[in-house]
């Protein structure tokens, strides 16, 4: 059922040229160089320290590694990190949704 729904969503997104984060409930991650990370549409902050930040989204986790990381701002579905960014990793759930 959900797989079918997923297909429909992808198709509608493509057909109407809609941004995929809105259609697919995926996080939109914007980085400004390696100093800022702007994450929208997340569902929860899992872990937070000055080296690693893990964020939950619909289908898995995002792991951001860096140095001197800090949360500049945190709202319900937005997160602005700053610090020295090293990598952004996606760890999708094993079932995939």
């Amino acid at each position, binding site marked *: 059922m959900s797989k079918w729904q997923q297909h429909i969503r992808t198709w509608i997104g493509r057909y109407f040229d809609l941004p995929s984060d809105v259609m697919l409930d995926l996080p939109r991650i914007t980085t400004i160089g390696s100093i800022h990370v702007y994450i929208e549409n997340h569902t929860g*902050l899992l872990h*937070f*320290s000055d080296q690693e930040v893990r964020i939950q989204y619909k289908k898995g986790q995002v792991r951001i590694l860096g140095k001197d990381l*800090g*949360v*500049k*701002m*945190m*709202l319900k579905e937005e997160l602005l990190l700053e610090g020295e960014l090293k990598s952004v990793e996606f760890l999708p759930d094993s079932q995939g949704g």
Partner: protein
Amino acid sequence: MMKNQHDFFQGSITVQVEGPLIEPFLQACTKRGCQITDMKRIGDAVVILTIRLKDWKVLRELRKKYRCKLSIKGGKGVPFIVRHLMRRVSVLLAFVAAIVVIFLLANTLWSIKVDGLSPELKADVEGKLNSYGVSPGKLTIGMKDPNEIQQQLLDDIPDLLWIGVKKQGTSYHLYGVEKIRHDTDKNTRPSNLVASKKGMIIETFIKKGRPMVAVYDVVDKGQILATGQLVEEEDTFVHSDGEVIAETWYRVEQDLPMKQVLMLTDGTVESEYSLKVGKLTIPLWGFWKGKEGNFREETHSSNWSIFGMKIPFHIKTVDHYSIDQKSYESSKEELEDMGLSAARSGLLQELDEEAEIKEEKVLHLSEENGKVKLILLYKVYENIAVTKYISQGD
């Protein structure tokens, strides 16, 4: 920019969150609408973050559920500035109040001094000043000008010739000159002048009335010296007035002991202090002292009161002055001198101011049983005329 301003006006606080479930706690907070900024981890389970002041309630509500410990590290923004200012405002208010109090005290009239007037007139002046609202303890603001007070006093008190009103700091200094009234004695009641005591007339000065005596007449007490009946056996009476100086005699007898014992204090004082509570006396200090030898005791008791009410605690002081007894033996001549001067000063006190001691005579001087007996005679010139009203009522 708008956001920053919003935070500034609404106020934001920096909070330290401690606990094992920080991330879920923060997640829950943001779900409830909190805006978390400037979050930094400073320990394994310690995070410092800044929230809006109004979100503090949410954090407090949720902290129990997530077993977090919150502690406020500081605040920023208008609410805190206002609070800070308020604290300063109270200081400022106290300062202003102090200045106002000093100003009021400096503008309060503390004393009025009246000089150069007789006590009756002084009381009159003070009473008048009081009725103008010039009295100690009143504010000088809104009080009349010293010149105005001066004029008003002169108008209101006819007996004042002149009065100077000077303001010296917080006191008024008044200097008055009294009118000396002549011809105020408009007594027209018919009267005689009679002798107040026995004497020999030396001089008569009858201003009004008909003299009845001549110089060197000896008059008895009550004898008429001058009469207000101007013509004999006629009914024209006047108020007689005048002076009749007569020689009068005084006899003074004195018994003076040859040996005198004087009690002299030599200056050593032993003081004893005790606290009096109601009727109970508790010795405090010095109760062991000053009990030997001869001494004179003087007791003082403090009279403390608070707001006009007497308090039952008093400090009683007993001073023991040690006494030296000294006996003086005087010779007959010394005693005579002493007796003379004592008698003279005693007589002068008794007599009028204008009276004059003309002669002093020792009538008798003898020594018996260790005492000197001294009898003195004084010749005095004094005014013996007194007014005696004639009763015409019949």
